[in-house]
């Protein structure tokens, strides 16, 4: 399955709109009908925004496993947007917390960050997301070079772990929900470990980053030869593209 440029553009627009909907719903409800958000709308907003941040982080991390499973390499072209939405929701999540809980009082916020471990880890995750968002443009990929860019963007793994930990430590007793996020994240990360391990093994066996057994280099499947950055922008996993991507190792 290889959609056309136009189809991918339309899909991107669709994903964009869908990703804005939760925020729009919260914002409009808060303004016009806070009761729709329950008795404690501020708490509901902060938590929902945090939930959406985690969901977008996991969605971003799901792109590579999904691509490998389906062979739909064009999925990579949605990843930057998913990652940026994770950042967006992290920022508005943090903003709603400093506004509603702390009325923007900086000293108080800093105290909270230092004193409460769940806030410390959440805030760390937010800080770590900043360089990733800042280097998400094609120009930045070029400036950094694909190799360094990929190395930097591997930060998304600890960020996602911190995010789940933040949620885990936030709940009082019932860890069911954070556990669900934790399991999904563990699976997504395990996939990468297994893949890397297979890579290493087949790398040893063939002595080099092998040409795919069917002879068609996966590079040929990257759908945007006219956009040199797109390949690099595919991030930490694009290295995988160069080697035995779906080899029956």
């Amino acid at each position: 399955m290889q959609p056309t440029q136009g189809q991918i553009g339309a899909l991107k627009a669709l994903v964009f709109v869908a990703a804005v909907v939760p925020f729009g719903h919260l914002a409009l409800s808060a303004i016009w009908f806070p009761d729709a958000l329950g008795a404690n709308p501020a708490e509901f907003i902060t938590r929902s925004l945090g939930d959406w941040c985690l969901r977008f982080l996991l969605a971003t991390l799901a792109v590579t496993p999904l691509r490998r499973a389906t062979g739909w390499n064009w999925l990579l072209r949605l990843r930057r947007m998913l990652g940026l939405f994770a950042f967006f929701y992290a920022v508005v999540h943090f903003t709603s917390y400093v506004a509603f809980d702390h009325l923007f009082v900086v000293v108080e916020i800093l105290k909270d960050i230092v004193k409460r471990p769940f806030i410390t880890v959440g805030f760390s995750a937010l800080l770590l997301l900043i360089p990733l968002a800042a280097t998400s443009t094609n120009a930045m990929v070029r400036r950094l070079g694909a190799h360094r860019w990929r190395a930097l963007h591997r930060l998304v793994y600890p960020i996602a772990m911190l995010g789940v930990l933040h949620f885990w430590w936030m709940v009082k007793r019932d860890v069911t929900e954070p556990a669900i996020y934790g399991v999904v994240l563990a699976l997504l990360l395990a996939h990468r470990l297994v893949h890397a391990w297979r890579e290493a093994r087949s790398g040893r066996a063939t002595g080099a980053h092998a040409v795919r057994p069917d002879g068609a280099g996966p590079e040929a499947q990257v759908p945007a030869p006219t956009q040199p950055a797109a390949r690099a922008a595919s991030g930490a996993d694009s290295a995988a593209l160069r080697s035995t991507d779906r080899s029956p190792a």
Partner: protein
Amino acid sequence: MLIKRPTDYLPSEITSETVYRRRREFVKAAAAGTILGATGGTARADDSGLRQLANVAASPLSTFEKPTADKYVTHYNNYYEFGTDKSDPVQHAGRLKTRPWTVAVEGECRKPRTFAIEELLKFPLQERVYRLRCVEAWSMVVPWIGFELGALLRQVEPTGNAKFVEFTTAYQPDAMIGVRLPVLDWPYVEGLRMDEAMHPLAILAVGLYGEVLPNQNGAPIRVVVPWKYGFKSAKSIVRIRLAGKQPSTAWEKASPREYGFYSNVNPNVDHPRWSQQRERRIPEFFARRDTVIFNGYGDQVAQLYAGMDLKKYF
């Protein structure tokens, strides 16, 4: 203190007329399909629907602050036996069986006995409009109806050995979907020191907003101790035990570092999870109210803790 600012609100407004208007709100909210309305109002203890409580006297111990709207008080509850989300109890507490209901009062007393709920409802009822401060840094103002806990305890004639009072919440696994998970050590147990329990502010509530207590608020009878964090006020109680030793309570067992036995509202004692400096009055957005020591009831209760290190005995 929070009480200082006068409002245009009168205690007489909170019963009949408010109840009337509130029903209209329910209907409207339900029609709008909102979170607060969609569950179709509140689960009352009685199948006959909303039921007024008669002969309720006003009390000088009530605050003049404006009560939090009933739809919030009954749709935003921590009652973990029915789920850990605050919107869970209103959805699931309807299954709680509140009749027949008895409360055993036993332990260090001369006349232990079991009271049927019908007997307890015959105690002279008062409306007590109290501030409620949750340890999670939100607060409400709730027009409870009930009677003084001390009035019940005196009936069983506590002995000199009675230093503490332990409350046990009902355990109905068939009705309580939350107890399937070992979130807390069920049944829920809470406790007070004897002098705290005998304080006139400590009540057993049987009603709310002029009516029988909704299940999600702890029907048919619950403790209300307004100067302590909300979790100290055990819901749907079936046993009151007078004890010589300090009871081991549910939240203290779950996390002793976070939840002390006393758990008096105190902005100066920091909680590992929430700053207790300020609070959010439901349904406001901003946590802009300064939390007052003993939840603003210091004039009445501070002497109970004279000489005590409240940071140590948090």
